[in-house]
C-alpha cells in the first residue's frame, strides 16, 4: 500500500503547471466567452419575454380603447340620428303651423275682400236700378222731369222701400 500513497513533488508541480495552463487558455478563450454568451442569451430571452408581455398588454389596452371608441362613436351616431329626427319633427310641426296660419290669414283676407266686393256690387246694382227706374219713369210719364227731381223722387221711393 505504501506505493499508492507515494509522495511525488514532480507530479504535483506538473499538475499545477498543466492545470494553470488549461485555466488560462480555456478561461480566456472558452469559459468566459461561453459564460458571457449564456448570460447574454438569458438576459435576451428574459427581455424578449418581458417585451412580448408589455406588447401584449399594450395591444390589449389599445383594443380596449378602440372598442370604447367604437362604442362612443356608435352612441354619438345614434344621438345625431335622434337629434336629426327631433329637428325634422319640429320643423315639420313649424311648417304645418305656419301653413295653417297663412291659410287662415288668406281666408280672412278673402272674406274681407268678398265683403267689400259685395258692398260694391250692391251699390252698383242700386245705381243701375236708379237709372233703369228713371228711364222707365220717363217713358211712363213721357214727360221729363228734371234730373234732380227724378233723383229726389227715386231716393224718396227707395227710402220708403228701404223702410218697408
Amino acid at each position, binding site marked *: *500500500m505504501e*506505493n*499508492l*500513497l*507515494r*509522495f*511525488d*513533488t*514532480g*507530479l*504535483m*508541480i*506538473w*499538475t*499545477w503547471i*498543466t*492545470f494553470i*495552463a*488549461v*485555466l488560462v*487558455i*480555456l*478561461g*480566456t*478563450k*472558452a*469559459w*468566459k*466567452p*461561453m*459564460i*458571457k*454568451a*449564456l*448570460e*447574454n*442569451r438569458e438576459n*435576451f430571452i428574459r427581455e424578449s419575454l418581458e417585451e412580448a408581455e408589455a406588447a401584449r398588454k399594450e395591444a390589449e389596452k389599445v383594443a380596449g380603447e378602440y372598442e370604447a371608441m367604437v362604442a362612443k362613436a356608435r352612441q354619438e351616431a345614434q344621438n345625431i340620428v335622434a337629434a336629426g329626427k327631433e329637428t325634422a319633427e319640429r320643423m315639420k310641426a313649424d311648417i304645418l303651423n305656419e301653413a295653417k296660419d297663412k291659410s287662415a290669414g288668406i281666408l280672412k283676407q278673402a272674406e274681407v275682400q268678398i265683403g267689400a266686393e259685395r258692398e260694391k256690387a250692391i251699390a252698383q246694382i242700386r245705381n243701375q236700378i236708379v237709372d233703369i227706374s228713371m228711364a222707365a219713369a220717363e217713358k211712363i210719364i213721357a214727360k221729363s222731369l228734371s234730373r234732380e227731381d227724378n233723383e229726389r223722387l227715386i231716393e224718396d221711393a227707395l227710402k220708403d222701400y228701404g223702410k218697408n
Partner: protein
Amino acid sequence: MAEPGHGTNSNIGDKIIEHVANSDVMIHLELFGVDISITKHVVMLWIAAGFLVAIALYATRRYRKEERPVPSGFTNAFEYVVDFVRTGILIPTMGKNHVLRWGPLVMSFFFLILTMNFLGLMPFFNYINHGHGGTTATGNINVTAALALITFMAIIVAGILEHGFFKHWKNLVPGGLAWPVYIILIPIEILSMFVRPFALTMRLAANMTAGHIAMLAIFAPIFLLHNAYVGVASVALNVGITFLEIIVSIVQAYVFTLLSSVFIGQSIHPHH
C-alpha cells in the same frame, strides 16, 4: 493488465497494487534539486489537458466571434455541460455575481477531472510505457492533492477578495459567542480548513483507483484458475463494472467540482 503466467497465488495482490500505483518515470528531469521527471501520469495529464483544450476551443469557436451565438451540434452538447456547471454548481453555491470570476476555475476543474477520469477508462494508456499497467492521473494522490491545494488557495483568495485580509480570517468562526466556545471552535475551524482539501484529495484518488482495483480483482481468478468459464464470467462482470465506472467518473468529477465551489462560496458568503 497483468500478463498471464506472471500472476501466482502469492503475489497477485502486489501485482494489482503495482498496476494501479504505477507511474513509471519516462524521462528523468531535475530542477533545483527537485525531481520533476516526466512520468506516465504526467503524460496522461498532458494528453487529457491537450484533448480538453482542443475540443473546448473547437466547441467554443463561435462564442469568440459572435455576440449572441446560436449553438448547434457538438457546440450545443458542450454548452449544455457548461451551462450545467454554471446553473447547477456555480450559481447555487456562490451566486450569479461571482460566476464570471470563479467560473473558469470551477469549469476547468470539472472538465479536466472529467477528461482524465474518462481517459483512465481507456485501456490503451497501458501501453504508454511498455505495459506495466497504470490508472488514470486522477487516481494518483499527487495529482488530486495538487488540485485540492488549488481549491485550498482559491478558498482563501475568494474570502480575501470579498472581505479583505483580516475580515476573511475572522469570518472563519461565527461572531458573538461566549469566549469559552471559541476555545473549541477555533481549532475545529482551522482543522476543517485543512480537512476539506484533504478529503477532496482522498475522495477523488480513492474512487478512481478503487474501480481499477475492483476490475483487476475480478480479472485475477482467470490467472489463478486458468479456466475459460471463469474468464467469461470475469469479462461479463467487468463490462458491468466499466459502465459503473463511467458513472463514477462523472459523479466524482461533479463531486470534486461541487465541493470546491461550495467551499469557495462559503468563503464569499460566510453563513455566520
